[in-house]
């Protein structure tokens, strides 16, 4: 009897230690320029919740990290245990040589089994670098969490779906935002512990020089409900105004995108590019204007709920994936569309 209860007590002690074990998943949250949480972080929280483990989040920035942390507080229904904030002037502009060592320290301290980031130029720069330091094979742009070891992702410009299994002790994943619903905030109130990360940064390898980003009232491409997207047939930077005018008929809901050809031709800035190596979008409504529909462009928008195509060439490949295709001259169609939509 004695033996039995001692054995039981030992097991209880062990299980208590395990339940005090820290979170299994770390989400690398992203702060955007005005201290707000990047929308893709919400899609990432959904992916993280599918791992069914406790979640910690970490935010890096040079200012307003507490504001960003406050936004994350709304999601206390998602098993988030702690929000780490790493605020340091050296994290301004998030140089990978500054952020990666701090992330590595956090990993060494807390032994996460999964580290996730929503696909963005920030997480894509940092997470593979971190993975190399941990000797694990990172997995880019997952579209499905099957279980703790198995995931799906797209290859060959989205023309094949790969189901894979990782044998690494730590899975480092970037998450395709459009493949996961954005997490919904909790209705109740609760507070997730916010902890300051003590991070001194020593980076003598790289320095930030300048940034040129377009500030806009319009929604970000990955989260816009409607996208008006232009190709090289727009013929000039000035003509892109036709698309902006259309987007502005739906304030807060619509924005403008572009094909690679339009960006290469200088008609619009690079951050509008939608495609295999640009932005991946899946809006409710995607209107492709003067875009022929190359494989590489389709890779970036084929999961849109409804696709409209407007093109002079009735045989353009884009029509084969369009729900509503209108053949004609975009320079006649766009003004007519704008006029009639204004009237509605």
């Amino acid at each position, binding site marked *: 009897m004695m033996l039995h209860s001692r054995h039981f007590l030992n097991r209880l002690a062990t299980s208590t230690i395990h339940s005090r074990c820290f979170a299994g998943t770390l989400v690398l949250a992203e702060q*955007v320029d005005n201290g707000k949480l990047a929308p893709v972080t919400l899609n990432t929280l959904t992916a993280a919740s599918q791992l069914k483990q406790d979640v910690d989040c970490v935010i890096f920035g040079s200012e307003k990290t507490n504001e960003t942390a406050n936004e994350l507080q709304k999601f206390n229904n998602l098993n988030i245990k702690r929000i780490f904030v790493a605020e340091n002037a050296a994290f301004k*502009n998030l*140089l*990978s*040589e500054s952020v990666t060592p701090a992330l590595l320290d956090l990993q060494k301290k807390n032994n996460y089994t999964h580290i996730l980031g929503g696909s963005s*130029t*920030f997480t*894509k*720069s940092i*997470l*593979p*670098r971190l*993975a*190399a330091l941990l000797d*694990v*094979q*990172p997995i*880019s742009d997952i579209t499905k969490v099957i279980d703790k070891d198995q995931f799906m992702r*797209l*290859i*060959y*410009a*989205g*023309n*094949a*779906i*790969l*189901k*894979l*299994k*990782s044998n690494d002790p730590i899975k480092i994943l970037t998450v395709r935002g459009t493949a996961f619903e954005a997490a919904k905030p909790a209705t109740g109130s609760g507070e997730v512990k916010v902890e300051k990360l003590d991070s001194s940064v020593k980076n003598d390898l*790289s*320095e930030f*020089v*300048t*940034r*040129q*980003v*377009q500030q806009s009232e319009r929604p970000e491409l990955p989260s816009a409900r*409607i996208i008006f997207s232009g190709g090289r047939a727009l013929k000039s930077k000035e003509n892109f105004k036709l698309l902006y005018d259309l987007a502005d008929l739906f304030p807060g809901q619509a924005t403008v995108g572009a094909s690679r050809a339009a960006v*290469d031709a200088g008609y619009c*800035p*690079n*951050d509008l590019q939608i495609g295999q190596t640009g932005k991946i979008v899946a809006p*409710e*409504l995607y209107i492709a204007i003067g875009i022929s529909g190359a*494989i*590489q462009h389709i890779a970036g928008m084929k999961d849109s709920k*409804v696709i409209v195509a407007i093109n002079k060439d009735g045989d353009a490949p884009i*029509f*084969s994936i*369009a*729900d*509503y*295709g*209108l053949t004609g001259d975009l320079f006649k169609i766009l003004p007519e*569309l704008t006029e*009639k*939509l204004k009237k*509605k």
Partner: protein
Amino acid sequence: MAIRILVGVKRAIDYAVKIQVKTDKTGVVTDGVKHSMNPFDEIAVEEAIRLKEKKIAQEIIAVSCGPAQCQETLRTALALGADRAIHVEVSGKDYEMLQPLAVSKLISAIAKKENVDLILLGKQAIDDDSNQTGQMVAGLLSWPQAVFASKVDIKDKQAEVVREIDGGLETIRVKLPAVITADLRLNQPRFANLPSIQKAKKKPMAKMSPKDLGVDIKPHLEYLSYEEPPKRQGGGRVSSVDELISKLKEKGLI
């Protein structure tokens, strides 16, 4: 002092090929299918050559990891202007399972061996679409990285790089030695002409194995299945702006 550059090139299915997933789900059809140098790697090679033409670089070494056919890709790099090539031979099942972490280790080992000042890679391979190798090489070597580059200026042992980021453009400065990955708009690659293709046949091509470099290329990921994505129904037509608007209104989209 003119720098020495290592450029990585990958042989991948050509960007214009219509990809076919094998019916037994074990992979994608590659036999008899046109392959070419990964387009982002062409841009990386072009950038290396321009640095040599500006006399900033004195030597360009091209490296490729894969089966014997990689030598064609390396010969193209030589024809475009690389000085010598290194073929790391990986074939058969080992090649099917060759993953970015292993490739990064191979490239890092060669970079150390050759004592280069700059590694230029394509931002991503259009087959695997991982966009990891450059970042991992930089991590392994503890070198700075400038990934998704659309402009590179090298001066005084530093590279000033304009990067394409989600919100627009960012300029950073990294000390050499560094890793830079090429994005689409970094440059417009040239074509190899017949005389340079002939000359390339005489340029040195070394062969080695992962074992020679002390690298374990054992895969960390298992590939369980390959499937075709669901086909999107399309081909719907409208004949006027009025019809388009009414259809979109019907669907509650506008």
